[in-house]
């Protein structure tokens, strides 16, 4: 079989099928709608994505038969490392260096090429091409599979959109009645098909500019899908917000592309590594897949005259490379909803639930993680460290927000943010395959959870508040059961002794093990392990809180409960498929030593970590070295997750602790989290309002130029006099009044901290001490 020829054909076909469906629906939507009773548009779309799935599977099997499934990386050094488990960190690092030399790797096999020249200026070409390796193929299968399931689910979920008179109870007309509109299922499938096309294009793209094109296209699809119920103000705002926040990230991405173009002169994935190597002509390329040290010093030439000059060029290049890495990561921060650009994702839940399942959990938001994985060789140590820390901040923050969310979809949205944070962390600490593996497992169990939530919302007639649910397991046993599996998967349930568990168990285990290995050799970044571990307890807590509140206990709203019903089969079957994969995605493929990870590891890029002048001298443990910690980490992780589970059970089943009491006790913190750290307000105050201010200022300047100049001169004198008077009042009196008033207010507010509670003072004392040691210890180690 000729992979070079067949793969582009197959994957290109899989890529273009949804576009075809989109074009047909877009141009012939009117006709398709007229025969609405047969929902043709939906079928067309579904058939297209199924076709893509089939093509992707064929491509996958061709790949496997040609390239094999990959072998787990257990070298001889692994056993040795296991023997010497009680080594000190320094010895371990030395061991890692030693092991790398033996761990030779014959490069990444990929198929790349050009479909057509997009634009050519002089000698510079911009092409529409493809780059296919194991990662591309795995993601193609994952995306088309999840998308197929969700297309089917949508056929059921959006059944009512086929009717001609739909009452939207969330929109009240001026007459006070619910707004009535014509259903538009075909529009939904049109957008969904366009999205699938863009997402597959993003994964298939052969160069960064093409990635950027599809990056924006998935953004606009997300815009359309979030704003599907565009009658609702909230949906419009959410759609705008999603696109604009993403644009902020994209600006960074663009800067990254520009910087990369400046330093490498190419944006094609296939050429990047060669160009990177060219940057350092006398590279000491160690024969290692995971860490190639290109020392800045090697830029130095022999000739004295050239030396300083070249060094500066090298510095500049490395600086540009860091900028490029940070810029590209900035794009990923936007798309993957990482802190501080995560604010759009919770609002994006305004879209229909299948959209949340597909776009805002499984695929589009994972595109950021994909891009980081794809551009991995570009990232210097500083950038990776930034990625890791952003990931940690995100995962903790989002998990805490999920603790207090009351909307079932929002809990899942925060959970998505948190899990994306885990992936970023894994990539940041050198766990390339762990991060990508978690991307894939997460896609399955999170879309399962979202579809479950969709089934619940569908059954309750668009009720999303957790506090109005409860006891639904009697009415919807299948949904409850499958969602429970999903919860177990996201919490990473498994049995460490037998090395058996759901998919999330394996991916999170790999991820935490890598973080632990990283913390072992970089003691100053030990929190990169501790905090994710703590996050795991939170994960288990919030996800089971969701399940208990929805399905366990007694029904809280009798009327809603009475009308609830199990989802129809067209919705249940996709969920079953996803359940199957949520359970098994992490398992070994029968009769082989391989699993999804080993297939992915075929695409493991060689990391050229530049020893930059500003480097914090980090050690990146090779990923296979972290295998030795798996058992240890698995126990720890299970214990942590178990704590979270236990706590959730104590709270919501045994009612040993009372949630409302806790809520009262932590009132301010609770409100702070529920308001999403007031970030929306802060952004509004810091960015949106100043921007509008500048805009108004620009407009104002124009009008002043329009005004007759003489006119202004005539009125000038009078105005001057008035201005002086006003100036006295406003510029001198007002600030002084304001100052005194605000000092008084401040004092009144500060008074509240003096509660007089002895035990509370004690808590502050302890937290302060711990914080002090944290800061001092951290700075010291730095």
């Amino acid at each position, binding site marked *: 079989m000729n992979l070079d020829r067949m793969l582009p054909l197959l994957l290109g076909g899989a890529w273009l099928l949804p576009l075809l469906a989109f074009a047909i629906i877009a141009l012939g939507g009117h006709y398709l709608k007229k025969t609405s009773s047969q929902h043709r548009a939906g079928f067309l779309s579904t058939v297209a994505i199924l076709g893509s799935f089939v093509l992707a599977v064929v491509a996958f099997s061709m790949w496997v038969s040609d390239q094999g499934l990959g072998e787990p990386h257990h070298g001889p050094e692994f056993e040795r490392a296991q023997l010497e488990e009680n080594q000190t960190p320094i010895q371990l690092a030395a061991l890692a260096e030693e092991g790398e030399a033996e761990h030779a790797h014959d490069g990444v096999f990929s198929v790349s090429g050009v479909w057509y020249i997009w634009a050519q200026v002089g000698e510079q070409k911009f092409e529409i091409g493809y780059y296919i390796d194991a990662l591309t193929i795995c993601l193609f299968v994952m995306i088309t599979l999840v998308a197929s399931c969700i297309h089917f689910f949508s056929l059921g979920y959006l059944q009512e959109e086929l009717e001609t008179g739909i009452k939207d109870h969330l929109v009240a007309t001026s007459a006070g009645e619910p707004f009535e509109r014509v259903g538009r299922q075909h529009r939904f499938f049109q957008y969904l098909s366009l999205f699938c096309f863009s997402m597959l294009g993003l994964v298939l793209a052969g160069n960064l500019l093409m990635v950027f094109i599809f990056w924006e296209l998935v953004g606009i699809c997300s815009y359309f899908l979030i704003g599907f119920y565009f009658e609702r103000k909230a949906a419009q705002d959410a759609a705008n917000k999603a696109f604009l926040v993403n644009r902020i990230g994209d600006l960074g991405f663009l800067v990254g592309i520009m910087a990369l173009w400046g330093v490498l002169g190419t944006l094609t994935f296939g050429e990047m590594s060669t160009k990177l190597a060219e940057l350092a002509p006398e590279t000491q390329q160690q024969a290692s897949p995971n860490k190639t040290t290109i020392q800045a010093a090697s830029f130095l030439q022999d000739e004295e005259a050239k030396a300083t000059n070249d060094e500066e060029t090298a510095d500049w290049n490395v600086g540009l490379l860091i900028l490029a890495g940070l810029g590209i990561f900035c794009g990923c921060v936007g798309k993957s909803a990482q802190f501080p650009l995560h604010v759009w994702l919770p609002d994006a839940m305004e879209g229909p639930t299948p959209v949340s399942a597909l776009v805002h959990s499984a695929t589009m938001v994972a595109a950021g993680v994909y891009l980081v994985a794809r551009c991995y060789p570009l990232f210097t140590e500083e950038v990776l460290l930034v990625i890791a820390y952003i990931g940690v901040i995100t995962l903790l923050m989002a998990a805490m927000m999920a603790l207090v969310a009351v909307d079932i979809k929002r809990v899942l949205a925060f959970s998505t943010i948190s899990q994306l944070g885990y992936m970023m962390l894994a990539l940041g600490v050198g766990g390339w395959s762990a991060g990508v593996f978690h991307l894939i497992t997460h896609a399955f169990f999170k879309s399962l959870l979202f579809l479950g939530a969709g089934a619940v919302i569908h059954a309750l007639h668009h009720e999303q508040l957790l506090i109005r649910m409860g006891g639904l397991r009697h009415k919807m046993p299948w949904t409850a059961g499958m969602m429970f599996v999903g919860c177990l998967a996201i919490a990473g349930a498994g049995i460490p002794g037998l090395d058996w568990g759901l998919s999330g168990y394996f991916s999170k285990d790999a991820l935490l093990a890598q973080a632990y290995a990283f913390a072992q050799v970089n003691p100053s970044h030990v929190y990169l392990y501790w905090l994710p571990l703590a996050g795991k307890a939170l994960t288990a807590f919030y996800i089971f809180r969701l399940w208990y509140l929805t399905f366990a206990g007694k029904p809280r709203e009798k009327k809603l409960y009475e009308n609830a019903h199990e989802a129809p089969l067209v919705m249940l079957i996709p969920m079953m498929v996803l359940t199957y994969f949520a359970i098994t995605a992490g398992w070994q493929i029968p009769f082989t030593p391989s699993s999804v990870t080993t297939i992915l590891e075929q695409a493991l890029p060689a990391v050229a970590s530049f020893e930059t002048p500003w480097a914090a001298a980090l050690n990146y443990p090779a990923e296979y070295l972290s295998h030795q910690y798996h058992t240890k980490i698995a126990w720890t992780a299970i214990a942590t997750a178990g704590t979270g589970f236990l706590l959730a059970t104590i709270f919501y089943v045994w009612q040993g602790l009372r949630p409302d009491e806790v809520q009262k006790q932590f009132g301010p913190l609770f409100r702070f989290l529920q308001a999403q750290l007031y970030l929306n307000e802060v952004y509004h105050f810091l960015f949106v309002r100043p921007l509008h201010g500048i805009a108004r200022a620009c407009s104002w300047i124009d009008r002043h130029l329009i005004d007759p100049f003489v006119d202004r001169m005539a009125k000038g004198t009078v105005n001057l006099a008035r201005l002086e008077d006003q100036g006295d009042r406003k510029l001198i009196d007002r600030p002084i009044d304001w100052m005194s008033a605000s000092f008084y207010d401040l004092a009144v507010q500060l008074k*509240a*901290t*003096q*509660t007089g509670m*002895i035990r509370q003072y004690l808590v502050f004392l*302890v937290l302060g001490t711990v914080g002090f040691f944290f800061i001092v210890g951290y700075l010291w180690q730095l």
Partner: protein
Amino acid sequence: MFTQPIGVAHYLVVGAILFVCGIVCMTTKRNTIGILMGVELVLSAAILNFVAFSQPAFRVDQEASLGIDGHVFALFAIVLAAAEAAVALAIALNYYNNHSTIDVDRAQDLQG
């Protein structure tokens, strides 16, 4: 576990657990006497650390131990702890006399 010799670190871990127990005791007990008990635990943890640091056999570099200094400080700490207990108890009794309760949460006279 039992084949490894004991080092300062082991004592420190025990001390840390005692310390944390003391802290938790102080923050979760509303009973004045309970808080006093927490204080005792915390002091006990500190004394334990003094003693551990003064034993040269507990560490690789035997010269670095505190020696007799640690013992003397431990003694002082014990004595002061005893004195502190006496005074604190006196205060607690007084508080009880005045407020007819030993619930510290009621003692909010310092509220701003």
